[in-house]
């Protein structure tokens, strides 16, 4: 096993990308993710890769579209306002079935907002984000180690489904330092019979998202939908203290990380609280939560926003006589484990006694 190294969250993403064979990076500076382009600009040349600081977020995503269309592993990263600008390109990539990894170390909005951690981009990430009926796989790490591991996984998933994969972190996950262990990426092979390489000794290929003939686009959308449905096999989640739990707190990313301390505090005080942490936000672990709701009736979503994942939680468990409560913390400050404990205690008292 590799020795532990003390690494910043953003850098772990860049390291994971290079280990997974990412050789092209396109980006535009925006806080709080600048360590990613900075790391890539320094280290990609060592492995024969290409770094371009693009003129805009829009250019970056389209360079990604171009590089990925040749079958190369490529990435762009940004933060919330920049991700908004990339949505056009993401929609085209989905429509054209072009893979690619897009990192959103999100900050706070709306508008210029601020640079605090936020989970306000949950809807944008999980509902497609741009125009048209499409989805991207969304991975939500909650530690620096997971930043590294999930970035590697993102490249495999992107190639497997020929679809963009979004990594949704935030300022906290990008800026904090933690010990991580590197591991060797095990290369997987995916079909490359669609890539732009020049029509040498074969028929020409076309990558497009425009379908004008009658019925063509209907079929294309159903085909894409079938693909999005098939992504369910990639669902990942983590649970803690579920045995005998009377209240399940549901959270992702940085807030889930804080909650791990909180739930321990609750258990120490004899409160039967469990933690459910979705790791894939799309596809969302609806079925797993539904199953849990057969034996546990009380749920509580905690998010760094005013209630977005809450809707998916309600879609999972809200159809029965379950209680779904919510605590939201819009950007501006990060809740401590104690603060979250107090919020959970209120709900626990109200629902369980």
């Amino acid at each position, binding site marked *: 096993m590799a020795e532990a190294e003390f690494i910043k969250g953003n850098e772990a993403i860049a390291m994971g990308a290079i280990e997974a064979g990412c*050789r*092209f990076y*396109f980006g535009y500076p925006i806080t709080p993710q600048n360590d990613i382009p900075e790391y890539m600009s320094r280290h990609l040349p060592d492995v024969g890769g*290409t770094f*371009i600081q*693009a*003129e*805009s977020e*829009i*250019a*970056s995503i*389209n*360079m*990604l*579209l*171009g*590089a*990925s*269309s*040749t079958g*190369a592993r*490529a990435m762009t990263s940004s933060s919330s306002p920049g991700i908004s600008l990339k949505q*056009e*390109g993401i929609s*085209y990539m989905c429509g*054209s079935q072009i893979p690619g990894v897009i990192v959103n170390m999100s900050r706070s909005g709306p508008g210029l907002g601020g640079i605090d951690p936020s989970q306000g981009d949950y809807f944008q990430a999980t509902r497609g984000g741009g125009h048209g009926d499409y989805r991207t796989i969304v991975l939500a790490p909650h530690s620096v180690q997971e930043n590294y591991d999930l970035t590697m996984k993102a490249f495999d998933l992107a190639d497997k489904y020929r679809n963009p994969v979004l990594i949704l972190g935030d300022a906290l996950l990008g800026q904090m330092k933690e010990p991580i262990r590197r591991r060797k990426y095990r290369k997987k092979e995916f079909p490359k019979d669609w890539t*732009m*390489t*020049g*029509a*040498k*000794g074969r028929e*020409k*290929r*076309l*990558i*497009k*998202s*425009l379908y004008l003939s009658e019925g063509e686009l209907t079929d294309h959308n159903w085909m894409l939908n079938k693909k999005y449905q098939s992504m369910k096999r990639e669902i990942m989640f983590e649970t803690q203290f579920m045995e005998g739990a009377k209240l399940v707190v549901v959270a992702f990313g940085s807030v889930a990380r804080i909650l791990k301390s909180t739930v321990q505090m609750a258990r120490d005080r004899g409160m039967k609280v469990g933690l459910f942490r979705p790791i894939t936000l799309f596809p969302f672990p609806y079925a797993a939560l539904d199953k849990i709701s057969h034996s546990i009736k009380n749920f509580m979503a905690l998010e760094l926003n005013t209630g977005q994942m809450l809707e998916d939680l309600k879609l999972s468990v809200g159809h029965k006589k379950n209680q779904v409560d919510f605590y939201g913390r819009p950007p501006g400050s990060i809740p401590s484990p104690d603060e979250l404990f107090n919020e959970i205690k209120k709900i626990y008292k109200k629902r369980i006694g």
Partner: protein
Amino acid sequence: MKQTFKRPKALVDIPSHFCPGCHHGIIHRLVAECIDLYGVREKTIGVASVGCSVFLYDYFNADVVEAPHGRAPAVATGVKRARPDNFVFTYQGDGDLAAIGTAEIIHAANRGEQITVIFVNNTVFGMTGGQMAPTTMSGQETTTTPFGRDLKTNGFPIKMSELLTELPGSTFVARAAVNNSKNLMKAKKLLKRAFEVQINGEGFSFVEFLSACPTNWKMTPKQATERVQEEMIPYFPLGVFKGGQE
């Protein structure tokens, strides 16, 4: 009987959707002739743009990836950086390149990307039905300048070739027209040079083609071709602006 004229290998044998008198077909043919001439068809990756030119993916017998509106130079950047040995070209109209895609073309040129850009300037948004383009001439009536383009409120027709010439990153910049056989022969020469610039690894090459759009100009093909000569060429002068013959 000896065959003296035939379809270039780089073009597919299907009817085009272009209107009668449109110059896109001629420009497509010139590009295809150059692909054949330099033997790069099997190495070519075309980047289609948005507008009437998008269907080049049906007409060219080569790999093509479609770009969002205006973004072709950024897409081509990604393609060319990943596959430096391929021949990569974009083919864009004036709405695409000179309006929504202004940032992408300027920065691709300024980075000296080793791509070839074919810019078709017909002073109007063609596919969307004849709205004002950034290259629409002073006084020209379009569906969004029904009283003619007023320079005071709509600004000036933009000269992209002149603009890109000023950038230190561009290698070859030229403007051509295909309105008569003399200009057509010159255009072919300029396009050949643009191809050579990429094939020789000299840098970024750009050819602007003045093109007729009889449908949206509400003219006959003959009138439209005459307009290229009488109105467009005086404002958009032809020739090499930068980086002539090696």
